[in-house]
C-alpha cells in the first residue's frame, strides 16, 4: 500500500496535464464576483456547457493572472471594478495578450449609510473629506492635522454628533473607489488644494489618499455584512458600502444623500448620483475557438435577460447601463471589438 502511495504521488508530481480545457475560467474583482457568478450559473444551466469557474482575486490580482499569457493555463476573462490601466495593458501586450475585449457591464454605487433608525442629514463630498482625511486645510489654506471630532464642527448646519465611520481596508476595491470618487473630489473643492494639485501632484495625492488614523475612521474589514451589524448598535456611526448591500439590508441601514442626491437604482444609472463607478469584464479574444463557450458567455452577459434593466443581475444589485449605452456595449462586445492602446488611460 505504502509503495503504491509513493508511486501515486510521484506520478502526480511529474505528470504535466497540459490538456485542452472545456471550462471557462474567470478571475478578478470581488465586487464583480457576485454578478459574474450569477451569469456563470445561468450560462451553465442553459447552454449545456460546463459552468465557468469564477475566482475572487481582486481587480489587480485578476489582471496579473489574465495578462500572464495566452493558452489554456491562463484565464479567459477577468472582472474589474475599474478600467484597465495603461501599465496592465502594456503588461498584457508584452505577454502576447494583444486582443482584449472590454465589456462594461453596469454600475456599482457607493453609499454612505447609517442605521435605519438614525436621523438622516445631507453631506457634501467636501464635508466627507473634512471628516475623514488625515490632513485638512485650515482657513488660510494651510494643511493641519484633522481637528474635527464632531460633524457640527465641520459645518454648523450638521448635527452635533460624533464622527464615527466604518470603512473597507485599503486592499478593497470599494476603498479605492471611495478614495477616488469622494476623497479626491472633496480635496479638489478647496482652492488651496487645487493649486497644490497643479504645483505638486505627488503631495496632493498624499493628502487625499491618507485617511485619518486617530480612531474616528475605522477599517472594518472586507465583510460588509459585519459593518451592517455594527451600525445597528450605534446610531452615530456611518459605514461605507457598495449600493447592493444597502439595497439588500434596507430594513437595517439607509443611505444618506451626498451632494443632495440619495442613491437609488434610478439616480445611479442616470448619473445623477456621482459616487458610482462602472464595472467591467475583460475577455481574451485569442481564446475564442480554443476554449468552448467564449462567445456564448459574452452573449449571455450582455443579454437583456442578464444586464437589462429588469435582468436577473439587477435583482443581485447591479445597476444597469441606460438604453443607448447598453445597446452600444452589447454590439461591440458581441462583435469582439479589441481594445487599442489609445483607448486605455
Amino acid at each position: 500500500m505504502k509503495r503504491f502511495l509513493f508511486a501515486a504521488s510521484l506520478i502526480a508530481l511529474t505528470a504535466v496535464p497540459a490538456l485542452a480545457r472545456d471550462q471557462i475560467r474567470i478571475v478578478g474583482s470581488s465586487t464583480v464576483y457576485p454578478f459574474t457568478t450569477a451569469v456563470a450559473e445561468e450560462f451553465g444551466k442553459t447552454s449545456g456547457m460546463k459552468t465557468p469557474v469564477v475566482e475572487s482575486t481582486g481587480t489587480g490580482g485578476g489582471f496579473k493572472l489574465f495578462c500572464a499569457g495566452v493558452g489554456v493555463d491562463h484565464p479567459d476573462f477577468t472582472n474589474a471594478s475599474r478600467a484597465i490601466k495603461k501599465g496592465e495593458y502594456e503588461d498584457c501586450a508584452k505577454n502576447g495578450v494583444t486582443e482584449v475585449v472590454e465589456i462594461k457591464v453596469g454600475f456599482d454605487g457607493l453609499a454612505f449609510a447609517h442605521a435605519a433608525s438614525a436621523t438622516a442629514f445631507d453631506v457634501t463630498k467636501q464635508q466627507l473629506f473634512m471628516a475623514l482625511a488625515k490632513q485638512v486645510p485650515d482657513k488660510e489654506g494651510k494643511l493641519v492635522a484633522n481637528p474635527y471630532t464632531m460633524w457640527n464642527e465641520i459645518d454648523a448646519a450638521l448635527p452635533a454628533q460624533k464622527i464615527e465611520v466604518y470603512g473597507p481596508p485599503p486592499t478593497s476595491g470599494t476603498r479605492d473607489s471611495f478614495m477616488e470618487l469622494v476623497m479626491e473630489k472633496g480635496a479638489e473643492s478647496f482652492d488651496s488644494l487645487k493649486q497644490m494639485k497643479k504645483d505638486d501632484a505627488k503631495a496632493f495625492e498624499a493628502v487625499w489618499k491618507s485617511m485619518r488614523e486617530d480612531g474616528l475612521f475605522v477599517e472594518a474589514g472586507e465583510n460588509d455584512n459585519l459593518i451592517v451589524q455594527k451600525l445597528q448598535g450605534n446610531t452615530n456611526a456611518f459605514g461605507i458600502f457598495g449600493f447592493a448591500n444597502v439595497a439588500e439590508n434596507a430594513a437595517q441601514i439607509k443611505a444618506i444623500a451626498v451632494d443632495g442626491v440619495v442613491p437609488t437604482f434610478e439616480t445611479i444609472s442616470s448619473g445623477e448620483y456621482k459616487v458610482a463607478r462602472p464595472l467591467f469584464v475583460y475577455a481574451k479574444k485569442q481564446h475564442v475557438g480554443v476554449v468552448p463557450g467564449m462567445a456564448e458567455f459574452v452573449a449571455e452577459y450582455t443579454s437583456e435577460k442578464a444586464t437589462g434593466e429588469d435582468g436577473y443581475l439587477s435583482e443581485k444589485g447591479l445597476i444597469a447601463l441606460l438604453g443607448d449605452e447598453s445597446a452600444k456595449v452589447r454590439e461591440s462586445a458581441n462583435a469582439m471589438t479589441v481594445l487599442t492602446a489609445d483607448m486605455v488611460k
Partner: protein
Amino acid sequence: MTEKQRKVQAGNIARRYAAEKRFRLYGVAALTVTTAFLAVLLVDIVWRSLPAYLQYNAVMTVTVDASKIDPAKPAAGDFEGVVKAAWREQLPSVESRADRRLLNSLLSNAGGSELRRQVLADPSLIGKEVSVPVMLSDDADLYLKGVVTGVARATGDGPLQIRAEGENYFLSGRGIDPGAIVLAAGGAFKIAPEGSSAPAEVIAAPGPAAEVPAGQWQLLSFDTPETGRKIGDRQAVWLEMLRDKNVFERQVAWNFFLNGDSREAEQAGILGSIVGSLMVVFVTVALSLPVGVAAAIYLEEFAPKNRLTELIEVNINNLAAVPSIIFGLLGLAVFLSFFGMPRSVPLVGGLVIALMSLPTIIIASRAAVRAVPPSIREAALGIGASHQQAVFHHVLPLAMPGIMTGTILALASAIGETAPLLLIGMVAFIVDIPSGFLDSATVLPVQIYLWSDLPEKAFEARTAAAIVVLLVIMMVLNALAIYLRKRFERRW
C-alpha cells in the same frame, strides 16, 4: 521558638493558604470566562444557522403536460413552465401581467427541479397529475419563516361594505384607515392614502360581495415598513393568502446538503465543498503521513547526530511556525508555474497542505517514537533482531497511537485552512461537484468565506450552517484522535 517567631510563622502559613486560594480562584475565573466565550460563540452560530436547515416548499398538484414535456425527450422539458402554471392556478384572482411576474418571482428559478427528478425517474408520470414540493425563492422562504417582518392579523370589527364600480372597489367599515390591508371575500385590498373615499388598491380580485359580516374579514399589518424589505406588500399578502390555503410545508432543505454552490441562496449547498475538502485531505494524508513518519523514524533511530541533522531538525521546527500563506506562494511557484499543473484542483491543494502539515507530523511522530521505552528496543536487539526489525516490529507499533493523534490534529487544522488555497485558485465559485482530483473544486472553509461576503440575507444562515458542519467535522476528527489514543495506548 519565641512567641514572635511563632506568630510570624502562623502569618506566613495563612498568607500561603490565601495565595493558593486566590490562585485557584483565578483558575476557575479563567475557565469560566473561556467557557462563557465558547458557549456564546457556539450558541450564536447555531442560532443563526437554524433557518438554513428547513425550508418552505409549495406542495402543489401539478399536471405534467405532455405538450410541455415531450415523452420522447423528457430531459429537455419545460419543467419550470409546468410548475409556474400550477403556481398561478393557486391564486387565479391575480391577473395582470406585472402581477403574474411578481407572483412568479416568489418561486425559485429552479422550482421544478423536484418534479424533474421524479419525471426523469418515472417517465410514465407524463400526462398525469402529481403532487410535488416546489422550491420557493430565498426571499419568500425568509418571509414565511418570519425573518423579514412580523405579521399581525386582526379580525374585522363590525361589517365591511364593498362597493364595486367597474374595476374600482370602495371599502368602508371600522378600522379602514389609509394604508390598511384588508383580506375579505376571497380577495385582498390596500386602502388608498386618501382613505375610503378613493378606490382601494386591489391586491387580489375578490369574489362578488356587497357586505361582509363582522368576523369574516381581516386586517393585516406588517412590523417592517414596505421600504425595508424585499418582499413587497402585494407579494406578502399573496403569501399570506396561500398560507391560509395550506399550500406551504416546512421540509428539510436537502439542497443545502446535496448541491454545489449557487448564486441563488435557496439552491446553494455544501456538497461540492465537502467533496473538495475530502479530496484535499486524502491527498494530504496519502503524501504527508508516509513521508512524515519515514522522516521521523530516520531522524530519531538511524540518522547520525551531527551538524547536518541538527540543522535539519532546527529547520523542521522553524517550518512548523511558517505562516500558511507562504506555503501557498510555494505551491504557486512550484506546482503551478514550474510543473504547469492546473489551477483550482484538489490535487494541488492537497500537495500544498501536505507540505504545510509535514513539519507538525514529523515533530509529533518523533516525540511518539522517542516515548517508546529503550528497554523494548534493547530486548528486540538482544534476541537478535536487526535494527530495522526492532524499529518496524516493535517501536513503530507502540508509537502508532501518538503518531495517529499528531497526524489527525495536524489534519484538523489543515481542513480549516484557506490562505494557501487562495493563491492556487481554490477560492472560487464552482457549481459542479468535483468527481476527480483534477476537477476544479473548493473547500468548506473557503465556501464559508465566500458566502459570508454575499449581500443576500439568506446566505447569512447558510454561512452559519456551513460553519456548524465544519465544526462537526472537526469534532468528529478530534473524537477519532482521542478514541485511537485510548484504544491503542500502552502504559509501562
